């Protein structure tokens, strides 16, 4: 349910601008609400009573039903344009349970963000609510089992609201005196240190990094049990929140332009293996999206292409399963953004053989024409696809409130500019590449005349090609990303014969598996 409110990240043209808070400006705050948040309809009363009961019974399956379906249905039916009843009003039906009220309020704010215009006070109250909730989870003894989906949505929404707040604060031109006064007075609200330190604290306190390490040796079974803890009578909440906070840190770092540290934060999770993250589809897509984007910015194109290919295949295969889900639109959106990122990566590093046939044909259909233009160094297309597919970068520091300017595009413009200057540095490479493909050896003077540049310029371009196609991996080893490689002996470029070694072994294994599967099916047929 969370995704209608929290898009998982990208694109300047997407839902953020269409959100009601922007559509209607801020008139809404001035109006007297025409609903009574103290009135609790019967349906809501029974909703909270049952949800409370299932949480106490640790009935994860029923909690998930209530959370995913019933909340959604009730919102649709009764609270399309108004908030749910206030937490204070439902408290009597749930024994005034403090933790339950915090959870309820978290849903309450999420609903406001998704369907209404959050006022500055609501933004601030929501921050306070997250603080109280995380403090209790970090320092109290929370004894619940909550669905992973819900816990992921919590982290996802926490970061979404942080990002939304940064964007909101960055539009100073249209702020009222009262808003400015509040922003000035409560500088700690949605403060970037606070956000990062909560995520970091959840990771540390949950000991999740050690748990994942032990998991590899079979010492624990966090992954095998999908993060739940049924035997010990324990709680999955802190552990799983810690786990999702790892992805959260990757995302926040990417929003700040800090790709290197983002990827470093993600290291405890191996995205080439299934894990707890891949059992929540929104989390899996978010993780891989930011992973791909960070690798693109670090010029690790091959890594980006591989991960992109993998997730696009998964989305392709499972798309129909999510059709009914409220996340479906978000999945489609991320799907398009990932194709745009893949198109950029392949234009800078044409390793088409890394891409699966299904993905490739989709890619040609969606981005084929743009890829051709990128091959011809059409910078406008790089600009367009980057802007469409990039995350919503933020400026984390509070502004100078005496200078009422909008600076909400600053962070995005900087990242775009740096990306385009990288593209410009590589602009001769695609034509070098296309010539090298035609020859097994070619004198530098001849290649220079083909490319219409002088010899020293060509020598520099060839060195640039080498530099840009060789990156350092995590261990500092030089890795080649080149699809066509060469070396120069004196004045002649020798092109390396890039015969693909046939992988007979893999081929046989694949067919043995297929055959086994087929036999299995045949044996199960009852005649």
């Amino acid at each position, binding site marked *: 349910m969370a995704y209608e409110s929290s898009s998982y990240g990208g694109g300047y043209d997407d839902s953020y601008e269409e959100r009601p808070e922007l559509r209607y400006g801020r008139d809404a705050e001035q109006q007297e609400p025409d609903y009574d948040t103290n009135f609790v309809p019967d349906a809501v009363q029974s909703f909270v009573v049952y949800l409370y009961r299932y949480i106490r019974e640790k009935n994860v399956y029923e909690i998930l039903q209530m959370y995913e379906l019933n909340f959604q249905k009730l919102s649709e039916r009764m609270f399309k344009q108004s908030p749910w009843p206030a937490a204070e009003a439902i408290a009597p039906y749930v024994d005034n349970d403090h933790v339950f009220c915090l959870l309820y309020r978290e849903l309450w704010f999420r609903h406001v963000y998704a369907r209404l215009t959050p006022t500055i006070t609501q933004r601030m109250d929501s921050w306070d609510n997250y603080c109280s909730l995380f403090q209790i989870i970090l320092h109290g003894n929370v004894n619940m089992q909550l669905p992973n989906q819900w816990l992921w949505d919590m982290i996802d929404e926490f970061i979404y609201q942080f990002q939304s707040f940064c964007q909101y604060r960055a539009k100073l031109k249209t702020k009222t005196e009262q808003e400015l006064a509040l922003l000035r007075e409560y500088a700690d609200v949605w403060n970037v*240190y606070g956000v990062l330190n909560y995520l970091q604290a959840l990771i540390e306190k949950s000991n999740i990094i050690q748990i994942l390490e032990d998991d590899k040796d079979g010492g624990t079974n966090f992954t095998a049990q999908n993060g739940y803890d049924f035997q010990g009578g324990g709680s999955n909440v802190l552990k799983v929140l810690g786990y999702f906070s790892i992805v959260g840190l990757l995302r926040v770092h990417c929003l700040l332009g800090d790709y290197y540290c983002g990827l470093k934060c993600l290291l405890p999770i191996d995205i080439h293996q299934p894990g707890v993250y891949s059992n929540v589809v929104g989390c899996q897509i978010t993780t891989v999206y930011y992973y791909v984007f960070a690798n693109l910015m670090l010029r690790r194109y091959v890594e980006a292409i591989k991960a992109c290919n993998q997730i696009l295949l998964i989305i392709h295969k499972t798309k129909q399963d999510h059709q009914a889900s409220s996340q479906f639109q978000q999945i489609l959106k991320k799907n398009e953004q990932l194709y745009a990122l893949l198109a950029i990566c392949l234009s800078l590093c044409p390793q088409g053989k890394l891409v699966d046939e299904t993905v490739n044909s989709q890619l040609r259909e969606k981005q084929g024409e743009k890829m051709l233009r990128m091959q011809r160094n059409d910078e406008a297309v790089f600009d367009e696809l980057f802007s469409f597919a990039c995350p919503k970068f933020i400026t984390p520091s509070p502004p100078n409130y005496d200078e009422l300017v909008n600076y909400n595009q600053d962070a995005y413009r*900087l990242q775009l500019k740096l990306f385009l*200057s990288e593209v410009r540095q590589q602009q001769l490479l695609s034509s070098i590449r296309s010539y090298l493909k035609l020859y097994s050896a070619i004198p530098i003077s001849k290649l220079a005349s083909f490319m219409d540049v002088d010899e020293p310029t060509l020598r*520099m371009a060839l060195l640039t090609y080498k530099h840009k196609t060789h990156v350092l991996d995590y261990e500092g080893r*030089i890795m080649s990303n080149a699809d066509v490689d060469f070396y*120069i002996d*004196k004045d002649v470029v020798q092109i390396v014969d890039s015969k693909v070694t046939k992988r007979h072994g893999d081929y*046989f294994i694949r067919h043995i598996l297929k055959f086994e599967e087929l036999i299995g099916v045949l044996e199960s047929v009852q005649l």
Partner: protein
Amino acid sequence: MQRDRLVATPERDVAPQYTMEQIVAVNPYNPDILPDLEAYVHEQVNHQTYSLDTNLCLLRLYQFEPSRMNIQIVARILVKALMALPAPDFNLCMFLIPEKLQMEEPFLTLITLAHFLETARFRDFWDEAERNRQILEVVPGFEQAIQRFALHVLSLSYQRLPRLVLAEAINMEGLSLDKFLEHQVVNNGWSVEKAPGGGQIIGLPANEHNYPELKKNIADSIPLEHVSKLFPVLT
């Protein structure tokens, strides 16, 4: 927000034996360590050491609190990052530095220098570096680091190259280049031969990039022997 409750106290007071890297690892988002990180930049400059992680952490703290930004230190970090080429560190730093600042000196010059290096325009680079000695010479080891990078790119590309191309890339000529070559021939497997039309041809030592036949086939495919082991269990 209870920031103070969440972050650990900086370890420096209690346990001075921790390295700056370790302190950053446990306090990645702690503004209190900013002065130590700044001091550590000076230490890296003076002792010719380098730590990307701690420098990025400092740039991050500047990004969160721009009023505390020290321009001179940012410039030092960027010079150090240039010296880390071929690693992409310069760009990693630039992603975190406000665009407004990037439009000012000395950052404009540093961006130009980085651009020349990224596009292997070594002649232009050395000329520009010469004109801006005041930014660069405060960081010991700068010239050697760039020469190392130039040699790295050359040895990715060339088996043998004209002396002039080498001279331009590492900014050496005449006697000092002769001496350098002599040293490389004795110690690092270089060779020097006469070119037919006069001048010298320099042979660089072999690596898997300039002699691709040295490339080990590291394709992670499954060897046939392993497949054959499966046959007995197949029905």
